[in-house]
């Protein structure tokens, strides 16, 4: 009896010794470049999840998680791959949170993550192109693809009785990708797209663009642009000439400055922005505020969820090897199982260790679809009496 107890104690010790190694997670965002204003909050969110896991002490038999930041620059693929290469070869990270922008995310995935077999979860790469990218099962994202926004947009337009739409998009990858996905989804649902044309940002006058759209006609004008740029000019010129009086506003067009600039002409206009009314979002906001950063900054919730999913999946796989933990991500993220919100990571680790199934809901109501990307949830709104009024969530 005594021997047996000694033996099992020794086994437990050895097991502990084998597992209680430090795990490193790389956080690769564009700390310099076009997204430099929002990436510090994104990184802080990911680190918040890591800190929560560490302070619970339940992670893989008491292992500690270290995070290492690296700069993706958002636009420079060469710099981004070099930074990711350094994370894997020098720092020896077992997983990557990132990258932020779609272009650099794709090049890190193809040039670094796949050759080295390291899994990554991006909180903010939304390009539809990444959905069908070859990823060996190593790539996930906690934000929905822009194609998904197209689907939701088309459905809302149909539900509200629009039969034909004209689209004006800002002339860049975001505008083009979004307008194409809206047009494709709307036509697939039986609607007709009368025109799908670009506008340049930063011009003084959009009457020529609006004249073209007016000639094409349509029940609703979808303006896939930016609220402080050409999108506003298009709406203003449309109202001035009486070309359109109902508009659809995708995420880039949501902002109080639009209502201020346009005034009562905007009443009756509707649209969507990413957003959720889940309790997780409120919990995350509390945690973020306590940690000293702004939870309403873009992609913070997604960043928290990305880091949390990685660590929970490692716990489920009892392994830091990417091949093992990436296989568990879908199980953790989706139902069935006990729902896990921000602030409950310690409990989630315990449940997993005890063999209970969990369903990670997180800050953004994560639910992964087929190819490992978030289905996303969108807030539908209507402009009523000069204010954005929420109609519901999809």
């Amino acid at each position, binding site marked *: 009896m005594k021997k047996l107890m000694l033996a099992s104690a020794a086994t437990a010790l050895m097991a502990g010794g084998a597992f209680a190694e430090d795990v490193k997670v790389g956080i690769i965002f564009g700390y310099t470049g076009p997204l430099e204003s929002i990436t510090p909050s994104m990184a802080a969110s990911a680190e918040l999840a890591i800190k929560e896991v560490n302070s619970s002490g339940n992670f893989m038999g008491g292992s500690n998680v270290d995070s290492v930041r690296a700069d993706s620059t958002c636009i420079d693929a060469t710099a981004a791959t070099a930074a990711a290469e350094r994370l894997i070869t020098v720092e020896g990270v077992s997983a990557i949170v990132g990258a932020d922008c779609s272009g650099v995310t794709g090049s890190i995935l193809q040039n670094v993550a796949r050759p080295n077999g390291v899994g990554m979860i991006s909180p903010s790469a939304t390009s539809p192109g990444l959905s069908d990218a070859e990823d060996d099962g190593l790539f996930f994202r906690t934000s929905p693809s822009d194609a998904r926004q197209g689907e939701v947009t088309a459905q809302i337009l149909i539900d509200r009785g629009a039969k034909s739409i004209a689209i004006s998009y800002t*002339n860049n990858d975001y505008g083009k990708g979004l307008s194409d996905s809206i047009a494709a989804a709307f036509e697939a649902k039986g609607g007709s797209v009368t*025109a799908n*044309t*670009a*506008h*340049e940002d*930063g*011009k*003084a*006058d959009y*009457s*020529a*663009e*609006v*004249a*073209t759209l*007016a*000639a*094409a*006609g349509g029940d609703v004008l979808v303006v896939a642009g930016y609220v402080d740029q050409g999108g506003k*000019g298009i709406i203003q010129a449309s109202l*001035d*000439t*009486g*070309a359109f009086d109902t508009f659809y506003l995708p995420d880039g067009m949501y902002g109080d400055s639009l209502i201020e*600039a346009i005034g009562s002409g905007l009443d009756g206009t509707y649209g969507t922005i990413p957003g959720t009314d889940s309790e997780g979002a409120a919990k995350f906001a509390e945690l973020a505020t306590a940690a000293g950063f702004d939870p309403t900054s873009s992609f913070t919730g997604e960043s928290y969820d990305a880091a949390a999913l990685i660590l929970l999946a490692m716990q489920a796989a009892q392994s830091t090897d990417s091949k093992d933990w990436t296989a568990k991500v879908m199980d953790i993220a989706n139902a069935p199982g006990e729902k896990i919100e921000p602030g409950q990571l310690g409990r989630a680790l315990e449940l997993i260790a005890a063999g209970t199934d969990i369903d990670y809901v997180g800050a953004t109501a994560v639910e992964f679809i087929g190819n490992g990307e978030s289905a996303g949830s969108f807030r539908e709104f209507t402009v009523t009496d000069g204010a954005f009024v929420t109609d519901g969530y999809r």
Partner: protein
Amino acid sequence: MDILNAIVAFTNFVFIPATAYGAQLALGALGATLVYGILRFSNFAQGDTMAFGTMATIYGTWGLQAMGVSFGPLPTALLALPFGILVTVGLLLATDFSVYRFYRKQKVAPTILVIVSLGVMFVMNGITRIMIGVEEQNFTDGERFVFTAREFKEWSGLNEGMALKTTQAVTIVTAVLVVAWLFWFLQKTRTGKSMRAFSDNEDLALLSGINPNHVVRVTWILVAILATIAGVLYGLDKSFKPFTYFQLLLPIFAAAVVGGLGNPLGAIAGGFVVAYSEVFVTYAWKKVIGYLVPADMAPDGLVQLMSTDYKLAVSFIILIIVLLFMPTGLFKGKSG
């Protein structure tokens, strides 16, 4: 009925915007053509002079608004125009005194003056951006419309609406008044006559006792008046942003060259030619044609010659065609 709808659609989307834009270009081109006629160089700083004048007027407008002054249904900026013009006159005279006078004394070739004006352009560009910033400023107030598209539809019972913005009406009226005054000044006054004499033949003008410094000063004052008014009208009708004024340089010069550099009448004609061409070529004619032809012949496509993205390219094409085939422009200017 259908012909009426076609006319209304055409007027609303092509005629009114193009006419207002043409008037703004014409005033800008008049300033450029005066400098070319009398000082004999292409003033690249024209667009940024307009931006500076507009900025000064915006500051004046804000001052008036702060004092609670308004111009009833018309934009307050019109009241602030004299202030803006005065400041711009000061800037242009100071520029001439400190920069152009030096090169005039050296009797440098016009090409050098063009490059000098390029430098002046960058400086003015910088001054405007430092003072008011690079963002868009909206300084239009008063009534927005003379009549709206909806009011027109209810009044006429047609399918198509037509709107006339206050700023468009103001632009056209102001442009007519300014041009009439300018021609009276050049034709009837002693100073105007001496300017024309100086422009036609500098040596003869000097021999007959015309004071060149006076002519130069008056020219800059006229340029300041025209540029400020053109800039303010453009800003009221569209919006003010330093960068878009810089981009106006191309259509303005296209207008001046089409009409014949140095010829005021040509500048006005050129302004409208460029404005109408830009809008005609990029307009989608589907709707207008749809009203005019029987229903079964109505076009499916947009019937658009060129995407609106290429609007600016139209100015380039006109510029090249005119320089190739008619270097002196429609109204026999001095270029070529």
